[in-house]
Each structure stands twice: as structure tokens, then as C-alpha cells.
């Protein structure tokens, strides 16, 4: 298993090694030591590698991840898993602002709290936060799901498109065009799958409330519903 000690090795060596893993390679488990809040740790992964980061990271960790599994045994700075395409990113501590921003796919799990703008402009990513999230989360979220076991801050889902929001605790306020919607069987099934994938075992889908777009701010046409 390759080990990169960032106290001794430049960050670029780690990221180039991650980008250089050939399709079908066996040695795909990486360990990163002493990240000490550095930016852009494990950015641009484009294959099924596994990265375990022992410590806290700065801006944009695991950005653009496409197929990798990145676990941060610490907290993450702004923009973790920004524009993720596929794969899994797990933050064992807290995440700073705009976690999972613009993500197109994959699963982001934050075991602590996430700050403001979590899931801003999400485009297909699924985000599960064990704690609470800050203000303006899921702003202009287009598709994908944001699941929050704790509370949500002000203006949740402002200017929302078709992202699905599930909050177990309180919501300080809903943003423009975001409304509470009924939890039907299909939503509970969808949520159960997400909770299972995120390793949440002690919480039931029935404990959540669902929020979504009132569809008055954008040109929603029911005939195109399959495309959303």
C-alpha cells in the first residue's frame, strides 16, 4: 500500500500517483499522513482507488472525484468533493462551507456537521450529513439528494430545482420556492437506500421530513418530468 507522508513529500507527488494508477492495477489503496490542512488533497481521482487520509485537510479535498473512495479521518475545509462525478467521499469530522458543491454523482458522507452552502448547485450527488448543516444549503440544487440527520440552517433549498432534501431535525427557514412535501412510500424507500449506503443504522426513514421545489421560479413542465 503506497504511503504518502505530506510532511516529507510534495502534494503533487501524491496526486500524480493517484492519477497514474493504470486500469486493472492491484495496488490501489493509498494512505496519506500529515495532511495538516493542505489544499487539494486527492483531487482529480479518475479510477477505483481507495485513499485514507489521516488528519484534517484544507480546501477542495477529493474534488472532481470520479470513482475513488476517499476517507478523511479528520475535518475538511471548504469545497470538499466539489464537482464529484462518482465514487464515495467520507469525512469523519466536520466539513466547511460548500461541501459537495456542483457534484454530479457519487456519495458524500459527513459524519460531523457541515457549514453553510452544503450541496450548493448539486447536480446528482447524494450527500448524507450525520450532524447539522448551515445556511443556504442546496441553493439551486438541480438533482440528487441531501439527507441531514440533524438540523438545517436558514434558507434551505433556496431557488431549488429538482434536488430532494430530507431533514430529520428542525429547519430554521426555507429559502425561496422551497416547500415541505409529503413523504410517500417511494421516498422512504429511496431514503432507506441512502441511509444504508451511508452506514446509518440507528435512524429510520420515517423520522425525516421531505422538502423540494414548489416549481414556481423556474419553467417546470410536467411533460419533461422524466428528464429531471
Amino acid at each position, binding site marked *: 500500500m503506497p504511503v504518502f507522508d505530506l510532511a516529507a513529500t510534495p502534494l503533487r507527488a501524491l496526486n500524480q500517483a493517484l492519477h497514474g494508477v493504470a486500469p486493472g492495477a492491484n495496488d490501489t489503496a493509498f494512505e496519506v499522513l500529515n495532511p*495538516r*490542512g493542505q489544499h487539494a488533497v486527492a483531487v482529480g481521482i479518475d479510477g477505483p482507488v481507495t485513499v485514507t487520509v489521516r488528519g484534517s485537510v*484544507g480546501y477542495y479535498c477529493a474534488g472532481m472525484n470520479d470513482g475513488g473512495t476517499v476517507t478523511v479521518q479528520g475535518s475538511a475545509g*471548504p469545497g470538499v468533493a466539489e464537482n464529484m462525478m462518482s465514487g464515495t467521499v467520507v469525512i469523519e469530522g466536520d466539513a466547511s462551507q460548500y461541501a459537495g458543491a456542483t457534484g454530479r454523482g457519487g456519495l458524500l458522507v459527513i459524519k460531523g456537521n457541515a*457549514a453553510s452552502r452544503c450541496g450548493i448547485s448539486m447536480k446528482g450527488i447524494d450527500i448524507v450529513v450525520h450532524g447539522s448543516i448551515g445556511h443556504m444549503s442546496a441553493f439551486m440544487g438541480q438533482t440528487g439528494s441531501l439527507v441531514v440527520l440533524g438540523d438545517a440552517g436558514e434558507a434551505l433549498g433556496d431557488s431549488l430545482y429538482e434536488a430532494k432534501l430530507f431533514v430529520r431535525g428542525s429547519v430554521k427557514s426555507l429559502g425561496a420556492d422551497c416547500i415541505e412535501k409529503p413523504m410517500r412510500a417511494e421516498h422512504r424507500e429511496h431514503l432507506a437506500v441512502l441511509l444504508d449506503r451511508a452506514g446509518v443504522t440507528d435512524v429510520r426513514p420515517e423520522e425525516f421530513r421531505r422538502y423540494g421545489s414548489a416549481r414556481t421560479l423556474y419553467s417546470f413542465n410536467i411533460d419533461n418530468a422524466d428528464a429531471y
Partner: protein
Amino acid sequence: MCGIVGLFLKDPTLEPQLGTLLADMLVTMTDRGPDSAGLAIYGPPTPGLSKITVQSAQALVDFPTLEQRLAEVSGGSARVAVKSSHAVITVASDRLEATRAALKGLSSDLRVMGAGESVEIYKEVGLPKDVVERFGIAGMSGTHGIGHTRMATESAVTTMGAHPFSTGADQCLVHNGSLSNHNNLRRSLARDGMAFETQNDSEVAAAYLTTAMARGRDLGAALAGALEDLDGFFTFVVGTKSGFGVLRDPIACKPAIMAETDRYVAFGSEYRALVGLPGIETARVWEPEPATVYFWDQRQAA
């Protein structure tokens, strides 16, 4: 951008290391702003004495005779310690205002960085590494301090445009962000008697807090008022003689992270700035909430 740091010690045994710790924190934030850098260090006050930190573009001309030229106005109490382009003038506290007024007439190159019983302020154009070396910050002890590395947006890159800004005795402020109502507020504060050295938005924020505290508010209450009266983006770290405060605007775009242990409270624009602090591995680390006042006071912490 801009990078800001702050360190408030609870454990007096760390005081000899304050300068070293704060200098390292600021140098780590260099990539957030290369234009200018500055620090305010609060040392233990000496009863009856006050300090004025001055800067001069003509230090070799202005400083050698400064003590002598201030002898009369300071009642013979003035002592001058030169550090590169800055000098710290120590005077009897009852001669502080007269001495400060006399400085204006001595040389057009002399500028007051700050004054009070415990604060010393050092700031210059250039990188944090060069600024902390130039002023020997690593050798300084103290109870608390704040620092700033600047990426200029609102006013010129000059010594006076660098942070921290000090607009009242032992008060100073560093700012990451930009204010949008500073011109109007500057006019209103000027009518109330505040004097301004620059066109900088952050100086207005400092003067706002000074005015509020002059009206009897404590730092916490002054910061709470700033949420109502200041418009724009800000993360502030503020120092007073015995206090240390943090405030973020309600939108909270400008990054902020804090750490607290039994020994200190620390602030950084990024976690990177905090990784060299003793015991950071087990510190409580959190992001300060938007529109929430945080402040600590030596008198309450002791």
C-alpha cells in the same frame, strides 16, 4: 482573500512563545495575501507607562534624535526602542496624549501605528516572512496578538493601508472581506470626532468599534452593534487591552476556524494556520457561526 490569525493565551507559561507562535501562523497564511503584513502584540502593561508605536519612511533621520526631541513634552519620560522602520516610544501615561500630539509637528514622515498601555503594532508592505523577521516578532512575548496578510481590494498598498488598524488606545482590528457602506459610515464617525488616516474600509470598522466602546459598550456589545451597522463581507478579529473578539457577517463567505484548549484560544483563516500550535491534536476545533459574537477577556479567563 487576505489571511488573518489571532492567538489569545489563557496559560501564562505560553506567553514567552506568543510571538513565535503568532509569526508562524501568519507566515503559513502567506498565499492568502502577498501585499502587506502586520501584527499587534499585547504585552503585560507596566503601571504608569504607555507606549506609542510609530513608523517612519525616514527612520534613520527621524529616530536617532526622537528621544531628545520628546524630552520636554514627555517630562523626560520618553524612551525610544527602534525596530527597523518602527519605533516604540514609552512615556509616562499622563504624558501620552501630549507626546502623541507633539509627534505630528516633529516630522511629516512619522506615522502613529497605535498606542496604549500594552499594544505594539508592526506593519509594512511585503510578505509575512519578511515583516516578522524585520521586526523580530518571534522574540516577543505577550498575552495575546492578532495578525494579517493582505490582498488589497479597497485602498492602496501602503504601510498605512496594512492591517491591523488601531483607532483607539490598545484597540486594533484585522479584517478579511470588504465593506460596502464604509464611506457613509466614515462621514458619520468623522462628525463624531474620529480621525481617519486612510480611505480603507477596515479602518472604518475599527473606528466604529472604538466609538462604540468609548460610549461604554464592552467589546462583545460593540461587535453585536457592528452586525446591525456594517454592510458587506467581513470576518473580523479584534484585540483590546485584555480582550479578543471574532465576528463574521451573516453570509459568512470569508473563512474562519477556531481552536480552544485549556491553554489558548486561536483563530485562523484556515486550519493550516493552527497546525503548529501545542496540543492542536486534542483541541476543540470549530467554525465560528455567522452573525455570532465571540469574545474572550483576560480578566474573565484568568
